[in-house]
């Protein structure tokens, strides 16, 4: 079990520093997942996102998600952060680094963590639109969707 770092942060995420935390002499592959704020969601132009967390619980769940994947993947080394506050287009909202001797475990580990994180960690986002409207996103609904053909499980 090698969860090296898990945190909810309000400052910009230093991806290079996270990579260094997960790096080790026995590591042959690192898989890094970055979630970023994009300018379009379900066909509607977005100008920014407010991220809010239940900070104490979110920090615990973030660590629990990573620890569970580490427990299922011997030798996996993980460092991750989720940012909260108001983010602009292109800003990194979440960064997950999974390192292992072998690439399959590193890639599958990072992927498993982001999927579980999105299901469990109490973080919410409110999108800002060009018309000034602001909407809390509910992934269980298809709200504000101009293009419902995009599968929700594929969206960030």
């Amino acid at each position, binding site marked *: 079990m090698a969860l090296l770092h898990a945190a909810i942060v309000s400052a910009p995420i230093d991806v290079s520093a996270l990579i260094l935390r997960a790096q080790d002499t026995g590591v042959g592959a690192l898989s890094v997942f970055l979630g970023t704020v994009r300018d379009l969601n379900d066909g509607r132009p977005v100008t920014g996102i407010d991220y809010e967390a239940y900070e104490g*619980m979110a920090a615990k769940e973030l660590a629990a998600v990573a620890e569970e994947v580490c427990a299922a993947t011997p030798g996996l080394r993980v460092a991750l952060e989720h940012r909260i506050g108001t983010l602009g287009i292109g800003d990194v909202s979440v960064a997950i680094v999974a390192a292992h001797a072998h690439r399959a475990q590193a890639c599958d580990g990072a992927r498993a963590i982001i999927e579980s994180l999105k299901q469990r960690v109490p973080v919410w986002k409110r999108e800002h639109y060009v018309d000034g409207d602001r909407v809390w996103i509910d992934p269980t609904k298809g709200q504000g969707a101009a293009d419902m053909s995009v599968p929700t499980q594929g969206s960030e």
Partner: protein
Amino acid sequence: MSIPVLLFASYADAFGTRELEVPVEAPCPVQTLVDTLRGMPGGDRLPPRVLVAVNQRLADTAAVLQPGDEVALIPPVAGG
């Protein structure tokens, strides 16, 4: 007596506050707290199923709240 409940995101908007005193007395089941919340101003905006965290862990509706527990409503999460 009342139980303070933490509210976030759309639920904070619904009730117009980030912390609400709910007029129920501990010990009481989570379900009683939720039912009471539904009858309060803004409670009609809660979805049919509401998740409740007790001491920062999701709790069953049958769980019993104790005095001093940290109670929070958890809207559908949307991190990442």
